[in-house]
């Protein structure tokens, strides 16, 4: 039986982070992962992350994955792939299946970072080929370059449903509708708004009544639900689709922890069966730690911090750093984690109905119900201002922990302040130089550069554009509203794609000036 000081289960964001912190302090660490490649789900995330600079904000998920692997490599972490941990027994004995053989290992400390599995909902026809998980869609298109389908219906309006729907559009699929049984959109409003402006309709208080087809999905019927989530007869709507994608939450994969005798609890706020842990991830069994989604569903940025915390704790537990060193590192990490757990979508606010922002501004009702801020609502927000000449218009209307726009502007036009969840404010006195860095830096694609009056009856609107083909300069098309409706004719006046924008192209369109504050997307 081979012995390691630390055995980490799962080479995703939290497992790798934990292994890095432990290995950096001199521990002999091995990470087991059942997959062929390390990185967990990070390599499927092609969108820019939210957060602050320190939390990898505005960096795309797969790039964060690459950086993490490099760091793990440098720290001397050993990663064993195609190695499924099938058992965790007394005295920290770990049983691993590799190919068709079983091996036994012993760890002085164990860090479980197995992540989470997707939830499903059942409906007639849900087992048909063509009904897939949102994770499957990401795996197909972002890892393997395969289109999940031609016409897709997405069930679930949390951040996963919203982000994957947008990625489906980027992969060249049509998203016919986004459906959620809840009466309001679950994920970030900015993610919903990105979809709405391309014309994807939202059906809240709706669910799938039936998937049609004999051998595979040929269509889907959705149906409105009442407040008890019962189908309302006569409200059925049919869509011609070949793919139904489900993004209905995640559950911690905590079986190994349970098996090893850790005290568990059923905690719906953390996503289901989770270990009882202290604030740094230690379970009820000394020397066994849990980090990332397995100890409560959140997202990759917090999973990485939790992993680092567990790594530091393990180092101290085995005598590789002093109590003081541990406390110093943990204090820093705790501060980072707390800053990510702020705002409307913070774990503490789960299930609460929030009607006003921290600034006391009313939340857009249309954003929650339809996926876009209504025209009569948009002027309420401090990022939406009117000025002469080109200036940023920031349609960021919910308190989320994210602030790259503030640093992106070299002229100080945008301020968020110390509190990372504040809504961005466009400063009146500073002058925009039309560099576009703010537009490209906004992970929510909520910043536009607008010249409301060019003097000839026209206005220009610069939008973030992450689709192919990239429209040609001079091309005539249409300006679309926040709800995706065609508002007016639009001419493409420039398309900027520089390295610093990281694949977010800046498309500038000329529209009649009365549409300056309403045209937010371009379609040819």
């Amino acid at each position, binding site marked *: 039986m081979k012995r390691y000081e630390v055995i980490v289960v799962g080479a995703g964001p939290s497992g790798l982070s934990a292994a890095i912190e432990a290995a950096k302090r001199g521990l002999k660490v091995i990470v087991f992962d*059942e*997959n*062929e490649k390390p990185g967990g789900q990070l390599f499927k995330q*092609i969108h820019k992350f939210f957060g602050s600079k320190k939390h990898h904000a505005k960096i*795309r998920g797969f790039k964060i994955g690459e950086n993490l692997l490099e760091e793990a490599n440098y720290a001397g972490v050993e990663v064993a792939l195609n190695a499924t941990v099938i058992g965790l027994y007394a005295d920290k004995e770990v049983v691993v299946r590799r190919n068709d053989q079983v091996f036994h290992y012993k760890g002085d400390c164990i860090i479980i970072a197995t992540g989470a*599995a*997707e939830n499903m909902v059942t409906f007639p026809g849900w*087992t*048909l*080929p*063509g*009904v*897939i*998980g949102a*994770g*499957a869609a990401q*795996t*197909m*298109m*972002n890892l*393997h*370059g*395969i*289109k999940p389908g031609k016409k897709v219906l997405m069930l679930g309006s949390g951040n996963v449903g919203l982000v994957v729907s947008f990625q489906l559009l*980027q*992969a*060249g699929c049509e998203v016919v509708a986004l459906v959620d049984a809840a009466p309001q959109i679950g994920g970030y409003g900015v993610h919903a708004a990105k979809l709405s402006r391309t014309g994807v309709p939202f059906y809240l208080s709706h669910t799938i009544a039936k998937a049609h087809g004999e*051998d*595979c999905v040929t269509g889907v019927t959705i149906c409105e639900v009442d407040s008890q989530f019962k189908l309302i007869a006569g409200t059925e709507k049919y869509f011609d689709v070949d793919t139904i994608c489900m993004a209905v939450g995640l559950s911690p994969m905590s079986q190994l922890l349970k098996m090893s005798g850790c005290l568990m609890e059923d905690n719906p706020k953390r996503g289901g069966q989770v270990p009882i842990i202290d604030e740094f991830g230690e379970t009820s069994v000394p020397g066994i730690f849990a980090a990332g989604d397995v100890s409560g569903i959140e997202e990759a940025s917090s999973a990485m911090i939790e992993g680092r915390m567990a790594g530091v704790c393990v180092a101290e537990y085995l005598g590789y750093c002093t109590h003081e060193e541990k406390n110093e590192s943990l204090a820093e990490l705790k501060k980072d984690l707390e800053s990510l757990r702020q705002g409307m979508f913070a774990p503490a606010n789960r299930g609460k109905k929030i009607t006003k922002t921290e600034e006391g501004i009313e939340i857009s009702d249309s954003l929650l119900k339809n996926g876009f801020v209504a025209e009569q609502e948009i002027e309420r927000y401090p990022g939406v201002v009117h000025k002469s000449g080109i200036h940023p218009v920031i349609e960021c209307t919910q308190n989320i922990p994210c602030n790259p726009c503030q640093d992106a502007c070299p002229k100080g036009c945008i301020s968020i302040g110390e509190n990372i969840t504040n809504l961005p404010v466009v400063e009146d006195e500073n002058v925009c130089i039309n560099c576009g860095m703010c537009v490209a830096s906004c992970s929510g694609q909520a910043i536009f550069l607008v010249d409301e009056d060019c003097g000839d009856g026209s206005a220009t609107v610069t939008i973030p554009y*992450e*689709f*192919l083909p990239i429209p040609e300069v001079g091309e005539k098309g249409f300006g679309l509203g926040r709800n995706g409706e065609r508002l007016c004719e639009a001419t493409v006046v420039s398309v900027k794609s520089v390295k610093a924008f990281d*694949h977010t*192209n800046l498309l500038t369109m000329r529209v009649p000036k009365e549409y300056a504050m309403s045209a937010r997307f371009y379609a040819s």
Partner: protein
Amino acid sequence: MNRIENHPILGEPQKTEKVTFCFDGQEMNGNMGEPIAMALKANGVMIHRYTQKEHKPRGIFCAIGRCTDCVMIVDGKPNVRTCVTPLKDGMVIQTQDGVMPKTEANEVERSRV
């Protein structure tokens, strides 16, 4: 084709070695090392297996090796998770029917049972 030729963020797919494999007696092409399920999807194959008792079709569901909906007979071995098994040149892949290959003889056997 179901392959993405150019992606706004990821660019063009990496050039990989092409391989041929056999699906239910039919010759198909795929990329060396990609999951079998992806090669099948690229070729428009949706049904991977039929369930043992009710004979209902199943295909890719989770695509990460958890759900086992996509298992098939690969080089004679049943219950292979095609979403996490890399494609190799010359592989023989069969639609699984219960735990057997889907063949006419099996159909007859099934109807007798």
